[in-house]
C-alpha cells in the first residue's frame, strides 16, 4: 500500500472513530429530557403550593364506580377519582390545562376527554376558583397516587405542583365497591386570593 493510500485509509478510519466516540459521548451525557425537566413543587393535601403562575391547593379525593357530570352518568370497571383543586392566579389571567395522576408503577393518567377531565376555565388575576379533577383509574393505581397540576401539557422548564393524594388500599377497595354516583360539581369562583 502506497503512503497516499495509507493516508486515506487512516483518515477514513479516524472519521469513523470520531463518529463512534461522538455517539458514545452523547449517550453518556445527561439526556435532553433531564436538562429540560419541569420544576416539581411538592405539597400535601390541604397545603397551598406556590407556582410561578398560580397557587394551587389540592383537597381530599373521593371515589366511586359511577360518576355523574353535566347530567350524564358513566360507569367504570375501575374507579373514578374526583379531586377538588383551588387555584389562585398570579399576575395575569391563567388557564390551567394539565392535570394527571401518577401511580407508583410509573403509569400516568391524563385528565382530558369525556371520561377523565379537568376544566377549570380562566382564573382572573388575583381571583380564586375551585374546580375538580376527575380521573378514571384501574383500582391498583389509586393507592399511593400523586396529582400533577400544570399550566399546559408541555411543562418543560416550568413549575408543576405534585401532591400525594393520600389514598390508601382501603380507600381504593371501598370506592371499587361503591355504586353510589359521585356527582362532580361545575367550577366556581370562591373569592379573591392574595395579590402577587
Amino acid at each position: 500500500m502506497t503512503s497516499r493510500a495509507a493516508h486515506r485509509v487512516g483518515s477514513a478510519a479516524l472519521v469513523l472513530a470520531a463518529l463512534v466516540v461522538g455517539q458514545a459521548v452523547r449517550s453518556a451525557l445527561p439526556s435532553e429530557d433531564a436538562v429540560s425537566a419541569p420544576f416539581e413543587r411538592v405539597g400535601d393535601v390541604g397545603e397551598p403550593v406556590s407556582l410561578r403562575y398560580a397557587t394551587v391547593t389540592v383537597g381530599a379525593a373521593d371515589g366511586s364506580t359511577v360518576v355523574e357530570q353535566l347530567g350524564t352518568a358513566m360507569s367504570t370497571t375501575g374507579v373514578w377519582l374526583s379531586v377538588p383543586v383551588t387555584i389562585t392566579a398570579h399576575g395575569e389571567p391563567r388557564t390551567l390545562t394539565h392535570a394527571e395522576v401518577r401511580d407508583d408503577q410509573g403509569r400516568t393518567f391524563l385528565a382530558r376527554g369525556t371520561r377523565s377531565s379537568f376544566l377549570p376555565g380562566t382564573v382572573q388575576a388575583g381571583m380564586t376558583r375551585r374546580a375538580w379533577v376527575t380521573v378514571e383509574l384501574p383500582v391498583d393505581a389509586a393507592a399511593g397516587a400523586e396529582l400533577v397540576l400544570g399550566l399546559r401539557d408541555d411543562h418543560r422548564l416550568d413549575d408543576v405542583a405534585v401532591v400525594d393524594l393520600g389514598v390508601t388500599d382501603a380507600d381504593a377497595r371501598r370506592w371499587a365497591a361503591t355504586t353510589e354516583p359521585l356527582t362532580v360539581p361545575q367550577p366556581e369562583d370562591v373569592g379573591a386570593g392574595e395579590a402577587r
Partner: protein
Amino acid sequence: MLPGRADDGASTSRSPYTLAVPTPSDETGPAVVDAAVRRRADALRGGRAEARAGRRRIAVARSAVARRLLDRPLRDLGAGATVVLLASTAAFGGLRDAGTTVDALAPGTALVAAPLEVTVDKVLWVDELPGAYPSEDGNRWIAVLTTFRSTHDATLLGPELRPTLSLEGVPGLVGRPDPATGLVGSTERLVLTDGSRLTPVQPGLEHDAVFLFEQDGDVAPPTEVTLVAVGQTFRSSSLQDLDEWTDPAVVARGTLPVREAVDSTEGR
C-alpha cells in the same frame, strides 16, 4: 546605477525617478539587467513547465485510478459501498427489525394490536345508535363489538385507536382510507355499558366497547366484512421532538359475518 541617469551623475532631461526599459543597445547596467531578467524568465518558464508536467502526471494518475475503478463492474463498487455502510451502522445501534407475520382474526380470540389487546366478539349493522351521530342522515353504522385493554403506560386520547380495527374492501364507507395501509379505520368508539365516547383510554382498564364504521345508507348493508387488526409502534417522531404511535402494520385479518342488530341496545 539607475537607468535614465548619465554615468557622470549629470542630470538629464528625464526625471530621476523614471525607470527606462533596458534595451540590448545599452552597454552598461541595462545589459546586465537584461541578462538577469532573461535568466529569471528562463527559470520561471522551466518551473512552469515542470509544474505543468507535474499536473499532467497527477491527472494521469487520477484518471488511472478512475479508469481502474470504472473498469470494474458497478455492482462491485455498489456492493463494496453497501458493506462499508452496513458495517458502520453497527456502531450506531444497527437497523430496525422488519415486520411480523399476519395472524388469522377470529371471534373470541385475543390478539395484540399495539397499543391495545383486543378480542372481537361479533359484527352488527344498525341504522341508529344513541350517542353516535352520522355525518349524513340515512347513513348506518357497522359496529364491531369488542373487549380491549390498553397496554401502554400512559393515556391514549383517541387518534391512536382509530386504525386498531379497520375494514378492508367494504363499499360505501365514509371514512378515508389510511394512506399507509389503504384500510378504513373506525369513525368512533363507544363504551357499551353507558354509551359514552371512549376517550381517553387509560392504562390497565378493560372496556367492553364498540368500534363504529359509518357507511353510506344508499349502499346495501354487508353480509360479511374483512376485519383487519393493525398494530403500531411507539417511537420518537422523525420530524418533531415527541413520542408517538406510528408505523401502522397489519397483525391479523379475518372475514366475519355481519347481521342486523335487533335493537339499538344489542350487546352481549
